[in-house]
Every structure is written in C-alpha cells, then in structure tokens.
C-alpha cells in the first residue's frame, strides 16, 4: 500500500528525515516509536502533505501513485488520513460543518452519493457513541476549548467517519487518561480491516497493549534504527531508547 524509499526531508534548512525506508502492506498496522524530536511527526506530516517541510530526496508510492505529487486534499481523497498530534482549533467553524463537508467531499471522490442531512446525522450519532462523545461537540467550534483528550477523540471520530485506507495516527494516545485511552484504542481497533493500513506513532507501550501492531520500528535521528514485531515495543518499554540511539 505504502512504500517509502530513501525519504529525506528538512524543516527551515535543518535536515530531519535522513533516509527513511518503510514498506506498509495492505491491512498491516505499523507502530513507530522513538525519542522526542526524532522526526516522527515530521514523517507523518510529510506523508499528509504539510508544506512546512521540504522533501529533499527519495520517493513515496501510495497505491501506485507518486504521493509527493499530490496536494493534501488529493491525498485525503485517495484515502489517507492524519490524526494530528496537535489537532488544530478553528474558531468560527462548527465541528459538524467540517464533519459533513469532509464526509461528502470524500464520498464524492469515491463515487458515492452525497449523504443527506438525516443520513449523516444518523451516522455521526453512531460514531459519537463509539467515541463516548456528547452530541454537543457537534455544535461547538472545531477543537476550540476542547481538552487534550477531547481533541484526540474528535480526531478518531473523524477517522471513523472518513473510513480511510491508510490512517496515520500521530501520538493519538498522548494526554489521555486510562479510560480515554481505552475508548480511543477501541475506536482504532474497530477500524482494523484487511483493506486498511495504519501507521501508529506513539511514545508508549500502553496504546500498543490495546492496538496490537504487526510491526514496530524505532526512529532516532531521522532514521529507522531497528524494526521488529510487537515484542520490540515491550523491550523498549523496559530498556528505553539509549542503546538504540547510540547504535
């Protein structure tokens, strides 16, 4: 599904990604772990098309297309979704406007008919229930005044509605208490399917206890230093990143 080859990227002249190679097959869940500042968010952002980052070398093939040639909205239309580490507040835009506009934009590109208001409301209520969110969140401005945990639930709510083919989840578990972590984790698990791949960026083992990854990679200094199965996450939890960073 996704093939990242020798990806180099920099931000404001500073090289951050220094030759990333990664293959994500259809239906697989990959976790990326690594110390702060190692380039995890940069990788997720470059894949989603944020233009603060400059790709200096390498290529990314997503379902046969050259991903780096696509605009962010074209990537979304092609089934990609990024759950932001820091979801953006948009004062003045109601959450429900964004949700409905996004769902219908993506349906249009999948050749599906637009959802009518009543169909959309039915769907969104279902998903709110899964995420244990109150309906009042629909009529509040996008992420404005949401707590850290509410923002992350709202991201996963969007993922549930948009049904992406490839989900990039950037520290969706950070800032969550135990209960919220379970809700978010279950929200992700519910989306597991043989057709859908997930790239899970996380700091901690605890989300990976709920969402079992097929592969775990360790990113340090802009490179993947180590890859393994889910037992690698447990080892990291015990031993920390020091040994790997030195390698």
């Amino acid at each position, binding site marked *: 599904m996704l093939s990242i080859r020798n990806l180099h990227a920099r931000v404001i002249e500073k090289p951050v990604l220094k030759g990333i190679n990664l293959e994500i097959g259809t239906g697989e869940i990959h976790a990326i772990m690594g110390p702060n500042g190692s380039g995890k968010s940069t990788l997720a952002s470059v894949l*989603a*098309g*944020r*233009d*603060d980052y400059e790709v200096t070398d390498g290529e990314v093939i997503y379902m046969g297309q050259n991903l780096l040639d696509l*605009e*962010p*909205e074209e*990537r*979304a*239309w092609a089934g990609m*979704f*990024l759950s*932001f580490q820091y*979801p*953006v507040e*948009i*004062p*003045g*835009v109601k959450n*429900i*406007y*964004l949700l*409905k*506009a*996004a769902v219908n*934009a*993506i349906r249009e*590109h999948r050749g599906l008919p637009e959802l*009518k*208001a009543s169909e*959309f*409301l039915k769907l969104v209520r279902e998903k709110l229930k899964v995420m244990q969110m109150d309906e009042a969140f*629909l*009529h509040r*401005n996008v992420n404005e005044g949401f707590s850290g945990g509410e923002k992350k639930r709202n991201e996963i709510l*969007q993922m549930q509605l*948009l049904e992406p083919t490839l989900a990039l989840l950037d520290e969706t578990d950070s800032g969550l208490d135990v209960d919220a972590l379970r809700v978010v984790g279950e929200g992700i698990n519910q989306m597991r399917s043989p057709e859908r791949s997930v790239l899970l960026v996380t700091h901690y083992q605890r989300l990976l206890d709920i969402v079992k990854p097929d592969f775990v990679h360790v990113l340090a200094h802009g490179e993947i230093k180590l890859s393994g199965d889910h037992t690698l996450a447990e080892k990291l939890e015990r031993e920390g990143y020091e040994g790997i960073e030195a390698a």
Partner: protein
Amino acid sequence: MSGFSEWLADVKDVRAPEALAVGLPTKRVESWKYVPIRGLARTTWQPASPQTTEQFALTGGQFVNVPKVDGCVVSENTVTASEQKRLDRMSQAHGFGLTQAALENTRLVLTIQKTASVVLNLHHLANQASSAGFATLVLRVEAGGQLTLVEQFESTDIESANLSSLRCLVALSRDSSVTHVRFQAANATAHVFSNLDVECSENASYRLQTIEFGSKLARNDIYIALVGREASASVNGLAITSGTQYHDTHLAIDHVVGETNSEMTFRNMVDGKGEATFNGRVLICKDSQRSATEQSIANLLLSESARVNPKPELEIYADDVTASHGCTVGSLNKTELFYLKSRGLSEADARAFLQYAFAEKIVEEIEHRDIRELVETQLLGELKHGELIVELKESVDV
C-alpha cells in the same frame, strides 16, 4: 466646477461659503490620508429626491414614514444648545463636515420616553445617480429607556456615483440602553457617510454592531463619550472590502469619568484591490479612575493587492485603569488551511470556511435573530465559494 461647489453656491445656509472655501478634504489631512475622494470630486452633485416607500426610511435626505410607536415621540425640530455644540464639533472635526452641515436637508428629533422600550428599523434607500442626500437624526433616550435601532441599506444597482450622509446624535440618560445595529450593504456605486456622536450618562450602555460589505466608499466617524459613572460602550465591527472598495472607520471613545467601561472589536477582511482603514482611539482622562477598556483589531488580507491601514491608539492619563489591546494583520492561517484540506476540503472550500469563520466572530454577536440571519445570508453570498457553507447551515443547523 464639480463636486459640491455648484450646489453649495446655491444654498442659503450660513455655513455654505465656508464649506465652499474649504472644499473637499484632501489627503493632506491626516484622517483623510487614505480616502480616495476622486469619485466625489469628479461628480457634479445634485440634491437627491425622495422615493415613495412604506417603510421608515431615509430617502433623498428626508425621513419618511416615521413610525408612531408607544414611548417614541417626534420632538420639535430644534436642538438644544448642547446638541448644537456637538453638531458643530462634528462639522469642524473633519474635512467633509461643513459640507454635510451646509447641505443638510432634514433633521429628525426623536425622544424615547422614560422606561419605554422601542425598536426602530431605519431603511436607507439608494439615491439616484449623481445625487446626494444629507440628513441629521437626533435621538434622546430618557432615563431607563431602551432603544434598538437597526439601520439597513437598500442595494439596488445605481449606474454611477450616488451619496448618502447621516449625522446621528445619541444622548443616553441615566440607566438607559441603546443597541444599534448597522448593516451596510449599499449599492456598488454608493458613497456612504455616517457620523455618529454618542453620549452616555450614568449607568447607561451603548452597544454598536456595524457590518459593512457594500458601497464604493464608506466613511464612518464614531465618537462616544462616557460622561457618567458606570457608563459603558461596546463597538463590534466588521468590514468586508473587495474589488476596488474603500471602507474607513474612525472610532474614538473618551472615558471622561471614573468607573466606565469600553470595548472595541473590529475586523477587516480585504480582497482584490480593496482598501480598509480602521482607526480606533481610546482616551482615558485623568479623572477616569477604575475604568477598563479592551481593544482588539484583526485584519485579514486575502490578496496581494489588498490593503489595510489599522491604527490603534490608547491614551491613558489615569493610573488605576485596566486596558488591553491587540492588533493583528495577516493572511489565512496555513495550519488551519492544511487541517481542513487534510480532511478532504478543496482549497476553495477551505478558504471559504476560514473567511466565514473570521467574519462570523462578529456576526454571531448580533442578538436579533432576523438581522443576524439576514447578515449571514448576505455574508455567504459575498464569499467566493460560500455555497458549501450555505448548504451546511441549511442541512445541519438546529
């Protein structure tokens, strides 16, 4: 000869010779430095004639169908010495003031009686091409009275320059309140002048919400004096300027006595070759202890050639005062755009969302549902690619 010279030479008003001598304001006058007055100078202006309507309206410089409602009386057409003083100050204050005074067609004096609650809807009808109307409205709100004044502008197309000017004096007696909503969506060739002079006595509150999309040129001069303890003023404004429009608001609030409050929030959104000027000045006098003022000015530039001239000014002479102010100028936020696009919104829809959001912060403050909805509908009509939001509002708003 052009501009107002012929007309001024014709009228008998004692101020006409001086107005004629002064002529139109020039860019050398600080407060007129950005105003493109060429359109005014090129037209040979004539008095506008009133049109027939059933609404309470200002047309051709005259008020027609003044409503007869309980608690609102039409007073004799003479002003008090202090009102005259305020009118004189208005005519001296800026370059166009003498012409406005000399060419004044009518004056309407309304008194809102003690503890009455009155709603007035004033419609500004478009004047014909090359014609201008000048009027003055005096509002006296007695103690405990409540007035809601809603001004709306007709947007019928007029082929060339037309002008309407309203000078408005508002006096709020103690414990009274005025909510003033001004929605200017005048025709694309209109020149709209509005001078507002408000005086708030003890515990009186004045709230102005002004939304401006229309006209070729608009100039607002707003002066508010807080002269009684516990008096308060709040001004919320939005100007949406595009094409070759010019919008200009000069707002000054004086805290004359202590324990007074003011708030000004103004937003400019400028596209195309539009230009917007906002000058917001707050003065806190020496005796105005324990007063508070909040000032927030935001400017959104949507094109390379759009221009804004924001100027916040805060002059404080008292020592026990709470003051906050902020002024920003920028284009649409890149991170917000990216977030929306990453959810599948097209560039055009994402931009429309953010423009709507910028304007909505002001519009959502309008308490009168009818007016708010009218403004929202027109706002969305103004936006490029506003259709998506229109459809969303219709489908999911409860």
